């Protein structure tokens, strides 16, 4: 059953599919539970749809459910992408395919940009988070520092600042 959910939700916007299957059709969770899972999936590291599947599987059937749901989510996509990779290797010299791949990469960047803008517009208008986002962008994106040390320093700093700001706001 979990493999089935994984298979049906693969392709397109997998989060929306998962919601439809799990909450609306099969009624395995309620809205509240699903939204909690969504937050966890987004906050923690890892691919969001995979994390969400893991969470849903775990809620429904514990360890086994979580494992099966994650495999169901990754395996079909893994097979498809290897097949595409095979085609790429066979035909990568053809000029038309080259042009198409360049176009697809540009469009893929556009997809990410749209997502980035959506997140940025919902972003709190506060100096500290904006500054942290900018530092992250400049060090990793422009100066090309390795991401791991940058993030290891910035995440605790950012969390501590958020904690401190919240306390100050409450006037504790």
């Amino acid at each position: 059953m979990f493999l089935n959910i994984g298979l049906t939700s693969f392709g397109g916007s997998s989060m929306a599919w998962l919601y439809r299957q799990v909450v609306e059709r099969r009624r395995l969770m309620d809205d509240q539970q699903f939204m909690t899972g969504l937050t966890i999936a987004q906050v923690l590291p890892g691919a969001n749809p995979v994390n969400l599947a893991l969470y849903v599987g775990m809620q429904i059937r514990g360890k086994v459910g979580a494992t099966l749901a994650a495999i169901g989510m990754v395996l079909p996509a893994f097979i498809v992408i290897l097949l595409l990779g095979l085609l790429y290797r066979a035909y990568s010299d053809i000029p038309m395919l080259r042009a198409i791949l360049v176009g697809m990469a540009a469009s893929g960047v556009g997809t990410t940009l749209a997502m980035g803008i959506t997140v940025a517009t919902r972003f709190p208008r506060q100096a500290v988070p904006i500054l942290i986002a900018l530092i992250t962008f400049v060090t990793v994106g422009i100066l090309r520092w390795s991401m791991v040390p940058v993030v290891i320093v910035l995440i605790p700093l950012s969390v501590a600042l958020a904690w401190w700001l919240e306390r100050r706001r409450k006037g504790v």
Partner: protein
Amino acid sequence: MFVFVPLSLLSFGGGQAIVADIQYQTVTVQGWLTNQEFTDMYAISRAAPGPSTLIAALIGWQVSGFWGAVVATLAIYIPSSIVVYAASHLWHKHADSPWRLAIERGLAPVALGLIFAGIVAVLRAAHILDANTVDLLGLATVLGSAALLYFTKISPYLLISLVAVLYGSLQYAGVV
């Protein structure tokens, strides 16, 4: 594998956040791929269904065959999955802890900065925009795609297919 395990643990906010470092590590540090190969794989992983972190599978395959793909995929998913599994337990136990809020708020700006860093890395690898070149058609595609997705409800897969057809015809007509 040693490249992907730390990235898995740091891919806060989804796979988009680590694209910059995947490019840096595999092209610049390890020399496994050329910029062109990286860009092609990025294109494939965006067009294919499923999470875009599967670019790891393509890179693994390029570097050491089928098992390379398997190892890279496991390396990118297992560490983060274990963290999610463990954290889900804690999350429910400490539903009202103020730390939860601080962690949520603290992670968001870092994730946002990384998303934009990833955009720059791909623009550079694809030679759409770097120190020496400005590819106007490529830049127009990036901005046009972003605008369409932001202002309309077009499916990303429909969009990417349309762009593929457009570039195919432009190439056929001898423009690019």
